[in-house]
């Protein structure tokens, strides 16, 4: 209970103490945001659901007799090569599970703190508005990568365990070495992560607009669903190429012998452009936002 130490010098010596910024401050702030996301039970449960996707597919394929034709992309090749379990799992998780998980965490990032009132304490520490938004955005991006990695790594391990890993027969018919196949798998995971950044940024934007975290999460998932719906209407084919979700499954390009680099770069550019637009809007909103919660 030594008060003097805690609150500074006695009044006689009190002078306006200079404010010192310690090295690595932004890194600590970012790390706290990531830890906050990862320590939360709900988010751990979401990652568990993502891990179950490749496991369930792998076990189902293992237990059933081989049949051709139906099912998600790549599922036919899984029995021949466990590596394809990664691509099958990503194909299955992309329309719903991944957007759901990204939507929950990104929609929660600011609205959640506003809702329970902790945002006002963070901002009066102070964490400046710019640093606050930036650290949270980077933490959401990190979580997006962790989510995609969870599907990919569990898929890879389960695939290896259940079916073994072999040299890869590409969609074009050529066969490449396992090392080449693993490199392509890493690129696929990277592409999917960047593709989801657009949605994650939309979630951050929505999160700055409300104090109701559930509404922000639902709205973010809604954006992904709406985009997928529009993408499924043939009469709207004119706008399909610029839809948020249109090129999410474009990672198949990476499994051809002659990868169309311009296409992949263009799509990646589109995803990053979406992220940039949403984040600029989020910044202009958050930097002037009245915090009344």
């Amino acid at each position, binding site marked *: 209970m030594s008060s003097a130490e805690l609150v*500074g010098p006695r*009044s006689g010596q009190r002078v306006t103490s200079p404010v010192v910024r310690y090295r690595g401050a932004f890194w600590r702030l970012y790390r706290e945001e990531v830890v906050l996301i990862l320590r939360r039970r709900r988010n751990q449960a979401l990652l568990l659901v993502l891990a179950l996707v490749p496991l369930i597919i792998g076990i189902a394929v293992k237990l059933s007799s081989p049949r051709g034709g139906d099912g998600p992309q790549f599922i036919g090749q899984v029995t021949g090569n466990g590596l394809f379990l990664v691509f099958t799992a990503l194909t299955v998780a992309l329309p719903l599970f991944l957007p759901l998980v990204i939507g929950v965490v990104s929609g929660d990032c600011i609205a959640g703190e506003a809702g329970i009132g902790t945002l006002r*304490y963070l901002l009066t520490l102070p964490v400046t508005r710019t640093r606050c938004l930036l650290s949270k955005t980077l933490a959401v991006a990190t979580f997006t990568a962790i989510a995609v990695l969870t599907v990919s790594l569990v898929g890879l391990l389960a695939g290896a365990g259940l079916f073994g890993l072999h040299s890869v027969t590409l969609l074009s018919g050529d066969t490449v070495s396992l090392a080449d196949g693993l490199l392509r798998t890493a690129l696929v995971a990277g592409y999917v992560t960047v593709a989801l950044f657009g949605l994650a940024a939309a979630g951050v934007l929505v999160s700055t607009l409300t104090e109701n975290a559930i509404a922000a999460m639902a709205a973010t998932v809604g954006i992904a669903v709406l985009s997928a719906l529009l993408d499924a209407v043939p009469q709207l084919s004119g706008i399909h190429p610029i839809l948020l979700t249109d090129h999410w499954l474009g990672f198949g390009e990476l499994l051809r012998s002659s990868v169309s680099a311009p296409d992949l770069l263009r799509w990646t550019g589109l995803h990053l452009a979406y992220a940039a637009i949403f984040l600029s809007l989020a910044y202009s909103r958050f930097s002037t936002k009245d915090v009344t919660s």
Partner: protein
Amino acid sequence: MTTDAAARTDPPAVSAAPAYAVRSTGLTRRFGAQLAVDGLDLEVPRGSVYGFLGPNGSGKTTTIRMLLGLLRPHSGRIELLGRSMPHELADVLPLVGAMIEGPAFQPYLSGQSNLRRLDRSDATADPASSAERIEAALARVGLSAAAGKKFRNYSLGMKQRLGIAAALLRPRELLVLDEPTNGLDPQGTREVRHLIRSLAEDGITILVSSHLLAEIEQIASHVGIMSGGRLLRQGSLAEVLSAGTAVVRVTTPDLVEAAALLAGLELPEVGVDAETSSVTARLGSLAPEQIAVTLVNAGVRLRGLGVERPHLEELFVSITGEGFDVLR
């Protein structure tokens, strides 16, 4: 109480420090058509304990939020510790500890983890001394034993204490405490009062809003009273209280004579209270001893003569009005 408070009126001897820890000029904020805060000129002297009073909805919290850069004023200027807000927010807020509208923490983290999170997020807090300062802050509010308990499982009083601990995580020059004793039991209230006193003795300026007027009267050196978005009174506690009407009460068996003499001294509102056998009048600027001399010289048998100053509560009600009605 007032003498005690008056001793604290003088700001500590600080070289080149501004005289006011908080100063606003013409601070105004609207919500829609409603003027929540209307032309506020707040002056909180350095080293003072400033009791910020007002009924619910009078604009206290809106004012505090503007002071701390959470809300944008529509007009007016704010200086915190001599620096302009919100432009110099990053330089001044590290010196300001705040509790705004009750404590708020991550429910599923422990009290200690919550403080750790705040401290690590603060670019100006020394990471090397973090654990030590967190321990000291928890000890200071009596939460050491419950440090590892989840915030969700804290009682209202414990939550309130954790809020104060967060404000005390590092050396501060100004503390802004919005209803710090809300939800505390009488012991807790007393402890917070002691805490505020000891912090004030360290030279920290404290802006404390409260509904507990008796509390404020015991700890505040200065008060400001808000109602309907306007600051109706402001100054040292003694000044503000003396603006209220002091009453002289003469206890005597000679009621009629005494009443006549008081009227003769041109004291207003002379009244006779037969039940207590006393005569009262508003004091005005006349010295009470003058009254005593006059009465005794005229042969009035004095049993007692006293000056009754209104308590803060009476003054508060006389300024802000009676009743539970929300003004707007």
